[in-house]
């Protein structure tokens, strides 16, 4: 998987939180890559460790967090070995972050022009006037109308969607290599969500940044991401391209997630849900952490942790169901339908390729 296209390589990351009750093992051996220019979505329910992963990358974990092993390689350097001072130079310059709630993530007593200009003043050593000029350009870029006047306004004078645009402007003003978006649309209305997502995609093309997109909303993932990593109980359980995860999922947890997402084809009165609750990470279960909630669980799931099985070059899943000796199970009806659709898509693609030659394929990969 090591390859020069990777801008960020997270390897065997383990993060514990010291609490009075004991050590909470929030991240348990997580590895993933972020390629240049791509959007990687990390999907999972609350408490699965998505946000802790990104905080660890930023070096902004709570004081009771302990990184017990692993490395985060950025441009050949391990971020985990950097001092606080060195991390300050990276934050907001190479790696920037957008937060969940735009209503609370702006300083209520500072003019927004100044807030956007701040990263320029910190990292580029710009004087205030010059930084403000550049901040103005950024405001126009993120689509704030009448930016000249509005840069002297305070956050409370903007709507939620506009504030998230401002937060995006702050994050992107230094053209960072990596943008971490931690549920950037969760707190917004659905109509505004679409606007913000479109804006992010548009800006990603303009300033060629790579995005780690944290979300629990699979609907958002479909339109946004190139690749998806599904997290459960502090581990990545399946990863692959968007099509692979959406149409050919292999892990029962991914099945559950996809089934519980309503689509236009959803029939019946009740939306399926995953029974039970996530395991207690103070004392993670042996074997597959999802086994207790998994109707397809095998005996070995409770005894031995499943390794990643290869589905395709880009698609891996950690479930014993993929072991050659595992019994064949039939996934939920909705997943079967998705897999059929996927098979058809692959067939169509193949037919098209034979028709037009391999040029089409390259385009598909981009």
């Amino acid at each position: 998987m090591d390859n020069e296209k990777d801008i960020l390589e997270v390897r065997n990351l383990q993060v514990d939180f010291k609490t009075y009750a004991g050590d909470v093992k929030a991240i348990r051996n997580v590895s993933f890559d972020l390629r240049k220019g791509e959007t990687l979505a990390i999907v999972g329910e609350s408490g699965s460790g998505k946000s802790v992963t990104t905080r660890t990358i930023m070096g902004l974990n709570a004081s009771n967090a302990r990184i017990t092993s692993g490395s985060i390689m950025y441009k050949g350097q391990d971020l985990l070995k950097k001092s606080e001072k060195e991390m300050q130079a990276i934050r907001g310059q190479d790696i920037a972050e957008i937060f969940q709630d735009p209503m609370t993530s702006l300083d209520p007593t500072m003019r927004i022009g100044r807030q956007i200009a701040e990263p320029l003043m910190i990292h580029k050593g710009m004087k205030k006037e010059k930084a403000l000029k550049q901040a103005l350009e950024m405001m126009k870029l993120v689509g704030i109308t009448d930016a000249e006047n509005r840069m002297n306004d305070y956050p409370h004078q903007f709507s939620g969607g506009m504030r998230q645009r401002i937060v995006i402007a702050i994050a992107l003003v230094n053209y960072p290599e990596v943008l971490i978006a931690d549920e950037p649309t969760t707190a917004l209305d659905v109509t505004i969500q679409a606007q913000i997502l479109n804006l992010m995609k548009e800006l990603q093309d303009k300033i060629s940044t790579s995005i780690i997109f944290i979300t629990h909303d699979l609907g958002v993932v479909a339109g946004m991401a190139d690749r998806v990593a599904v997290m459960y109980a502090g581990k990545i359980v399946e990863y692959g391209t968007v099509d692979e995860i959406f149409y050919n999922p292999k892990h029962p947890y991914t099945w559950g997630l996809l089934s519980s997402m309503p689509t236009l084809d959803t029939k019946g009165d009740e939306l399926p849900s995953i029974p039970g609750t996530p395991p207690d990470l103070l004392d993670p279960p042996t074997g597959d952490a999802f086994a207790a909630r998994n109707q397809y669980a095998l005996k070995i799931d409770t005894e031995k942790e499943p390794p990643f099985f290869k589905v395709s070059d880009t698609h891996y899943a950690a479930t014993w169901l993929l072991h050659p000796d595992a019994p064949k199970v039939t996934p939920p009806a909705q997943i079967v339908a998705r897999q059929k659709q996927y098979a058809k898509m692959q067939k169509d693609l193949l037919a098209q390729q034979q028709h037009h030659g391999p040029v089409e394929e390259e385009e598909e990969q981009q």
Partner: protein
Amino acid sequence: MAKYLAKRIFYLILTLFIVITVTFFLMKLLPGTPLTNQAKLSKSQIALIYKQYGLDKPVWQQYVLYLAGAVKGNFGTSFQFSDQPVSYLISSRIEPSLQIGLQAIIVGVIVGIIIGAFGAMKQNSWVDTSATVVSILGISIPSFVLAVLLQYYLGLKLGWFPIAEWGGFSYTVLPTLALAAAPLAESARFVRTEMVDVLSSDYIELAKAKGLSRMGVIYHHALRNSLIPLITIVGPLAVNIMTGSMVVENIFSIPGIGEQFVKSVLTNDYPTIMGLTIVYSFMLCVVLLITDILYGIVDPRIRITGKAN
């Protein structure tokens, strides 16, 4: 803004009127008379003195007369110092009171902010614990106890400062310290709580994500946001100092209005009591008005006027 100010000034006058009325009638319920040696005076002498000071009239008439005078700026003459108009008595004595009062609130609030901010930054460390101990001591020890302790140790034993009397800056140090303890403790406690709150807020997280250093985060984002609410308690703190000063001025023999107030109450010096009550209420109202205006200036969210958009 002008409309807002006019409204506030109207309320200020209304407040003063109510204070005057209530104090006037309460004062008349005080036991005793303004006369020092009543036993040695004959009935006709007392009647004569009462007539001279207008005390022979019914209370409601005295009240109306007082109001009429007060509106014209005439607050009567003191009973204790028979030639001195109350307005002169107060104006000649207000300076020492203002000086130690202002010094106390400035020293108290600034040191309180520093202690509180460090406590919040080093939450749950020994710095924080000592800051908390200082606050608890400052709040629980009354200013007059502290005054006496300061007099004894810093004044008498170490001889660093004069113990009592008035005359130059060195005489103001001990009373200032005695009065500053309460606002120091209050504001330290307040700033610590606010700052702990602010430091865990999302915009501080964003400030860190921008790459600001620890001190940069505190200086540019945390401080201003945690100090704004402090303005709300500066009013009550000023009241604290005003009431505290009455006793503390007595302890240090400072010729201020606080000391005068205590004397006037003890001798039933009605015009002086009234005059000083008005001065205290007026200062209090002005402090509250100033804090409200200040609040609007430093916090953009509650500006009274703004652009009409």
